């Protein structure tokens, strides 16, 4: 072949000449294979999956409108009629409220993590790849953002602009991207020295191409781990704000708001606090397990150790001259 290496246009080979390619076992598959074997991570995944299914299927799952008040049947015990978890002081069905709250809490958790990861990745990538002034300016912004008391800022913004769902996501994202930015920047500082970056430059790939096609892909695992952990953080932050009355406003509801409501009746009906509390606890624990699972699965350092038992078995089977 070869002598004529005119690339391009007319080299379209018939399909039967082109050798079929085998299916690759990519880094995602390899990670998944290891992840599968981690019981904590897998149970986390299952629990989170159930919560997501419940949130998506909320209208079908919940027997009542979560905002419907029925003072005649207030403060019912669990399993009274079809109120599986009973009702609250306004006669709202607690189970329905838990399911609908999950919608909002989970949405906030994932949306905040997504927005924060996008902002943080872009800023971190630019800082780390270009360095110089871009790095100095962005990292000082990170420092400033880190030194502002987040809760105070949230309260302030809430007080000025009022509170609603979208604003809530914005506020929480804007106060939580800094960790990702630091992480990605650190990663890029290392990655930009890799020789394949120089190789990409030598074939004329633009800086943005290198950042977004080459390097973000290589930084993706730590970013994903960070993002999973951030989902838990955002759910907790929302709970905190709602607890202070600065989060979601009625008739919307979230687990945090339910907690906040429940505190008034702590002595009468402590279970009202337990249900949303357990939900928050389970979801946050699950995403943490998942995050740790991904991190462990992609850690190449884990090496199988030869146990003395295996060694003895092997020797008994194969060795002729064992000590």
């Amino acid at each position: 072949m070869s002598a004529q290496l005119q690339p391009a246009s007319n080299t379209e080979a018939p399909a039967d000449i082109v050798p079929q390619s085998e299916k690759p076992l990519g880094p995602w598959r390899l990670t998944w294979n290891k992840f599968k074997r981690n019981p904590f991570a897998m149970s986390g995944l299952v629990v989170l999956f159930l919560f997501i299914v419940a949130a998506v299927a909320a209208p079908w799952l919940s027997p009542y409108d979560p905002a419907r008040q029925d003072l005649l049947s207030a403060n019912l015990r669990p399993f009274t009629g079809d109120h599986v978890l009973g009702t609250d002081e306004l006669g709202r069905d607690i189970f329905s409220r838990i399911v609908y709250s999950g919608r909002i809490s989970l949405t906030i958790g994932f949306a905040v993590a997504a927005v924060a990861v996008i902002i943080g990745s872009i800023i971190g990538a630019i800082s780390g790849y270009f360095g110089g002034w871009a790095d100095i300016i962005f990292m000082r912004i990170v420092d400033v953002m880190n030194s502002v008391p987040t809760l105070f800022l949230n309260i302030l913004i809430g007080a000025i602009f009022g509170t609603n769902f979208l604003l809530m996501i914005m506020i929480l994202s804007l106060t939580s991207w800094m960790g990702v930015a630091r992480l990605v920047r650190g990663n890029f500082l290392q990655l930009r020295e890799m020789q394949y970056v120089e190789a990409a430059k030598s074939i004329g790939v633009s800086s943005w191409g290198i950042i977004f096609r080459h390097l973000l892909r290589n930084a993706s695992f730590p970013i994903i781990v960070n993002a999973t952990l951030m989902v838990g953080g955002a759910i907790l932050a929302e709970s905190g704000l709602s607890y202070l009355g600065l989060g979601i406003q009625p008739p919307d509801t979230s687990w945090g708001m339910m907690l906040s409501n429940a505190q008034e009746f702590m002595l009468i009906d402590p279970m009202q606090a337990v249900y949303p509390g357990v939900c928050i606890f389970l979801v946050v624990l699950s995403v943490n397990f998942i995050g740790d699972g991904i991190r462990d699965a992609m850690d190449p350092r884990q090496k199988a150790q030869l146990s003395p038992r295996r060694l003895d078995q092997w020797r008994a089977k194969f060795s002729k001259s064992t000590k």
Partner: protein
Amino acid sequence: MARKILEVNEMSAGFLVNKEIVKATDRISFNVEEGKTLCIVGESGSGKSVTSLAIMRLIDYAGGAILEGDITFNGASLPAKDQDEMRRIRGNQIAMIFQDPMSALNPVFTVGDQIAESLRLHQNKSDKDAMKEAVELLRQVGIPSPEVRAKQYPHELSGGMCQRVVIAIALACRPQLLIADEPTTALDVTVQAQILDLLQSLQKETGMAIILITHDMGVAAEVADRIVVMYAGGIMEEGSVEEIFAKPSHPYTVGLLKSIPGFEANDGNELYTIKGTIPRINQLPTGCRFHPRCEHAMDICRNQEPGFFQLGQDHKAACWLFEEHAAESKVSPARAAIEHGEVRV
């Protein structure tokens, strides 16, 4: 004949690969005499570094183990010792130097401290005495103004200097055996020449035995008394340096020598190549491990692993070409190639 200081006997060392125990060295045997240098030559994946880890019993920390066979050092079996006993031997009677001198030194201690540490540890010397001897050792490995250098940190020294420091640390306790794993691979040729010279003159002074692990036939020719050629975990050929280079016999050894470019003018022909690549240790072929890459492979090579055939007084090769009746009927093609001058050395 000098005293054998180290005897490796039918030793296999292995690791867990995909939950299977896999041999990285396969029943290898060789020995090292006092005051002599043995070179283990092989490409990456040949098991030469695993051999050194096994002798040092560092293989236990690398997730592997000595599976079978014995290693005798000064008459005592090393695999039978526990790690506490090994710790007293390592660095004291057997010392090791590695390929990358920079990462072998701790960046936050002065080089003098690092040499003295070994002396304090193994010989219970006082700080002052240890430091004094460290300076003396630096002088011995050819570092100019050793008093000044002893107070410097590794990053203040060049790569060649660092390797001299590493050698000084290895020599601190007057080891009887020095294992050098690719000690000059990271260095420039002119510095490599200095370090090889240094090792040879230190050997003359102290009478220690050296195992030098290298991929470079040239380095082996310069410093070795004996040579062991390894491939994919097995020994292919072994003999005195004169025999190996005068009559390289195993097709792999011959191939290695023929593939070295540039000792003569390029005559426009292609360079000799050994086809294919070295197999992974968990995917060894049946029969002779070299047969898929061997241009002389016969049927027997595919099915049955060859033992060693004696080729000279101190020279043997594991290759069916040298089976006695085969040797009678025809001169082996590999040997014929050498005799016809196709191998340029």
